[in-house]
């Protein structure tokens, strides 16, 4: 079992338990674990809603690294190309740097590409 380091940045305006606003935290995530679940297990309460890769509440921007989204219910090739991840169903394939709380940005990206859900 390979374990990866996932550095999660939190934008200033978001209040996430386990990370100072504007700060970052690093969690360890096994290759078979979802990023969201691993982060929450380690005290970092990232936002989420459906936890099935459908609603985009858990969206993050991928600053560096690769993830697998095979289990997502609604995730498109253009999402990956634009550097968005759904942390609730994404498993790491490398060490990662993510910027959390990207739901609005991902929805705007979806709207620009004629995909659901939109803002």
């Amino acid at each position: 079992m390979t374990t990866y380091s996932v550095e999660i940045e939190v934008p200033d305006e978001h209040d996430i338990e386990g990370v100072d606003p504007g700060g970052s935290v690093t969690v360890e995530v096994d290759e078979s674990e979802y990023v969201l679940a691993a982060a929450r297990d380690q005290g970092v309460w990232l936002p989420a809603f459906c936890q099935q890769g459908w609603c985009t509440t858990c969206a993050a921007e991928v600053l560096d690294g690769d993830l697998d989204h095979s289990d997502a219910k609604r995730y498109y090739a253009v999402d990956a190309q634009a550097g968005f991840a759904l942390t609730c169903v994404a498993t790491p394939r490398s060490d990662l740097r993510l910027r959390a709380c990207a739901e609005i940005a991902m929805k705007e990206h979806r709207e620009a590409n004629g995909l659901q859900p939109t803002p």
Partner: protein
Amino acid sequence: MSDDKPHAGGSIEPGDTSQRVGVTTLEERGLDVDELIDKLKAAAGAEFTTYYYYTNLRMHLAGHEDYKEITEDARLEDRAHFELVAPRIYELGGALPNDIREFANGASCPDAELPVPYEGDIPDTEDLTAEDTLEVLLEAERCAIRTWNEICDMTEGKDRRTFDMAQRILQEEIEHEAWFVELLSMERDGEINPAGHFVRGEPGEAPYSTNRRINDSA
């Protein structure tokens, strides 16, 4: 403001109907009401689409009258959840989308589709099993549990009315999950995992979440 009546005053002018104390008091407590409205619309969308999809799933449990009956309870209770949430969205100053497609696309849970390919308008049910259908039902309930827990987290200690509503819906979603765990365990694995599905007073009674009984004409 009178010392004797500390809640008699406030920042809203008497007779002003453009604002609601029921909203401003939530904002005073640090709740992002716009975010809550968005989440409630998404959750209401999930309840409504679930009601639709469960109608189709239930019809395709042909020959499994016991499964049909339990699915019917879950189906009608999810409708009751939608009807409970919708007025709350308006109380908070929000509104349901005019376009049902927008409403469904914004649902917080995946479509609980019949797990078979379609040929045009007709499902190819040749390989459809009760096990497959029960798994779809189970995962839909699990999504609902997650979403209502999140809404409980958002509102706890800040918005007592929404918290109470979300908590009561959550109670029923947890029961629904237990029902489908029991059915799928036996159907797929031959395992006994009792849920205690006691018959409701009538189908769809929604014992926790119904504020007012749906009358016979509804």
